[in-house]
């Protein structure tokens, strides 16, 4: 199956530069090579069938027939050896601790701004900064409870942090379901390979929710707040709620009275202590944020500010997702922890810094330009593949609103062998581990490996033709 495989030109997860299989992939390669291609294809197809039957799907927006699609699953796992994982774990832990200290600071004394480490206007003009919450204390001082940081590997195999998702990172259900799918399709595969299990995720998530409950007495009532069954991540919301054994609620199930949040049950109102919310800030409370939002709960912000309910993640964490703030994360780590960052950022230019902007404007065809607050692969310019017109258009945009743009050199993401209609081909991948910050930092060994299924593509988002793989962390 791997006979015609070409690993040259990029960092390949399975093969080194000489074409030899890397040691941590050896057993897997042997096992996979023993399957005839048709058999392998049949097993892959059975995964799809299973996902469809189970309804492991995401909704496609702007499709009035309500089409649900499965997230394409590639059966070739990505394997991470133990020492590499330790390094990632240390780096991600350092990062989430620093980000939480940073968020606490900018919503309180703002030492980091006073000391001039970050120019003040970057914070004040960050779209998701919520000045109205300055001085407010959140339970246990935790802001980002769940972080989904995207990691990529460059040409020499170095891991870089591409971005931090500190609002409502999604995809954890696929991390769990991919493992189940692979086990079902290749039952013999896992024996003696020493793959660390990932199924503790829901338990760690629930422990964290309990930890941040503002009420001491009794078992805290935790709920998962979803925008509803038309949301693209609805499957995940149900999945996690069921795995944790908590209620999944919509805005209309909740009501605020005397600054406490209650859910409507058949036996009357029941007080809610902790909300794992999967609704963005803007839609959370129509009396505070978007008035036209019908997804949220009127008055929930009052209850939050009164300290009567905990929200995970906290309100206002989006400022840390701002790609301009991302630029400062290494400095944030140095400032709060006095340490060097373990995981580097991708080299980044800030369009609002004069010298950087000059560089960006002169080198657009070599760079990736990103809008500060877009996600899902939107608002991007891929310099090398862009037309003259697109480049000219972005030039204007950057000059008009430099605060809103950063640029990075194109990182040639590492590739992993991927089953592409009958043969193995190299496809670019990234990795999203899920970091939980409760009484301790917990990272489930693994993560969501996304793969750009289209040949040559660097875009791994599900909305743009990406798929996913199981991620193995070895003991």
């Amino acid at each position: 199956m791997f006979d015609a495989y070409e690993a040259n030109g990029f960092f390949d997860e399975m093969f080194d530069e000489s074409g030899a299989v890397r040691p941590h992939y050896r057993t897997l390669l042997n096992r996979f090579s023993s399957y005839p291609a048709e058999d392998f294809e049949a097993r892959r197809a059975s995964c799809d069938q299973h996902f469809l039957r189970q309804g492991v799907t995401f909704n496609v927006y702007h499709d009035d027939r309500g089409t649900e699609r499965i997230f394409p699953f590639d059966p070739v796992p990505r394997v991470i050896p133990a020492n590499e994982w330790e390094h990632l774990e240390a780096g991600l832990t350092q990062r989430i601790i620093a980000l939480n200290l940073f968020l606490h600071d900018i919503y309180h004394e703002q030492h980091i701004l006073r000391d001039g480490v970050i120019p003040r206007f970057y914070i004040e003009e960050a779209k998701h900064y919520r000045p109205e919450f300055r001085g407010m204390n959140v339970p246990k001082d935790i802001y980002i409870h769940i972080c989904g940081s995207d990691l990529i590997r460059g040409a020499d195999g170095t891991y870089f942090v591409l971005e931090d998702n500190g609002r409502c990172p999604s995809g954890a259900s696929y991390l769990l379901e991919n493992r189940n799918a692979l086990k079902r399709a290749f039952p013999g595969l896992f024996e003696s390979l020493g793959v660390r299990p990932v199924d503790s995720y829901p338990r760690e998530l629930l422990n964290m929710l309990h930890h941040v409950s503002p009420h001491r007495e009794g078992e805290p009532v935790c709920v998962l707040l979803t925008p509803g069954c038309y949301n693209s991540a609805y499957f995940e919301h149900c999945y996690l709620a069921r795995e944790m054994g908590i209620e999944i609620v919509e805005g209309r199930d909740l009501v605020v009275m005397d600054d406490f949040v209650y859910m409507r049950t058949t036996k009357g109102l029941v007080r809610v202590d902790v909300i794992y919310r999967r609704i963005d800030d803007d839609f959370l409370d129509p009396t505070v944020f978007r008035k036209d939002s019908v997804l949220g709960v009127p008055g929930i912000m009052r209850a939050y500010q009164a300290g009567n309910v905990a929200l995970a993640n906290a309100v206002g964490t989006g400022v840390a997702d701002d790609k301009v703030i991302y630029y400062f994360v290494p400095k944030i780590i140095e400032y709060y922890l006095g340490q060097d960052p373990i995981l580097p950022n991708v080299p980044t230019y800030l369009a609002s810094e004069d010298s950087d902007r000059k560089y960006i404007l002169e080198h657009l065809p070599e760079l990736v330009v990103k809008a500060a607050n877009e996600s899902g692969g939107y608002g991007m310019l891929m310099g090398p593949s862009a037309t003259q017109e697109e480049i000219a258009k972005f030039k204007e945009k950057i000059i008009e609103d430099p605060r809103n743009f950063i640029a990075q050199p194109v990182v040639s993401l590492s590739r992993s062998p991927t089953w592409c209609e009958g043969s193995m081909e190299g496809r670019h991948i990234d990795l999203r581990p899920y970091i939980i910050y409760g009484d301790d930092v917990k990272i489930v060994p693994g993560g969501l490996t996304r793969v750009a299924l289209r040949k040559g593509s660097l875009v791994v988002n599900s909305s743009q033709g990406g798929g996913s793989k199981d991620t193995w962390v070895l003991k």
Partner: protein
Amino acid sequence: MLSRVANSLYWMVRYIERADNLSRLIEVNGQLLLDHERLDSERLRAFWKPIILATGDDELFGELYSDASSGEVIRFLTDDRKNPNSIVSSIAQARENARMVRDQLSEELWEELNGLYLFINSRAGENLLTTDPTRYYETIRRATFTFHGIAAASIARSESWEFMDLGRHLERADKTTRFLDITSFLPEVEDGNGAATFHWTAILRSCGALGAFRAEHLGQPSAKSVLDLLMFSNNFPRSVRYCVDRIDRNLHRISGSPRGTYTNGAERVAGRMLAELAYGSAEEVLESGLHGYLDDAQTRFNEIGDGLFRAYVFPDITDARPPIPAASVSAVVAWQMSQQQQ
């Protein structure tokens, strides 16, 4: 349990039951027609029209179709997505509700329903409907039975179960009265040629009750003997009395109040209806007029659904919370609400 969850569980099962009943009705009547191949097109229309009238969707049918021929009626009731009460719509709505409460369902239960949904939307499903309708309807009936079986074996006898069981029996009772009502819309039969027997037999078959009938009654089915079984039997699972007994029990398990008393409108209507069924008789019904009697029963089923809604889903004590803006109500929920308020 969340009020919204209770509501969704209840509707999920109602729609499943609806799909089951419709597939029976269509299949049985289609089969009967095969026995009477000499019916001309006018007689055919006379045969199908009452079925549309009894389902209560004749107005919509009139908007969508020009002619009540077999093909059109079957399409309208089976796979017309414009008919919210067709089999495929019912299954889609059941699945939509199930999706909203997925976390409450066992994995097997969801998969069964999702599998059925995928089947009716597949090319294979559509092909089967044209090439072998009998097997198509059988597939649906088997899937709904499997659904009820998995539910019975995997759902704890908690509040969730009571709401589901209630939805099933309310829908079933309603459909039994509607099947009986078909006879009200039939042209007067010149008796002696067995036409009446023919219709009563079809109704028994639609309710899967022919075997039960034969076990209890000698001779051909008549209005009285069929009513005895489908209306007043206390042990046949599709009889109205049996279903209302279950409904009354479900309601009291949910509220925790003893049977024979009531704490909300639903319990009051169900309790009164049960007493009337226990002490009523087929003769009385026939004397007072079958159609009016069945119509009244259907009104009461609506009242029970309505009372349930008020007591548990949107109680009037709705506290300080402003009403839900209409835009946040999904099309499905809005439609359910309007169904409730009929």
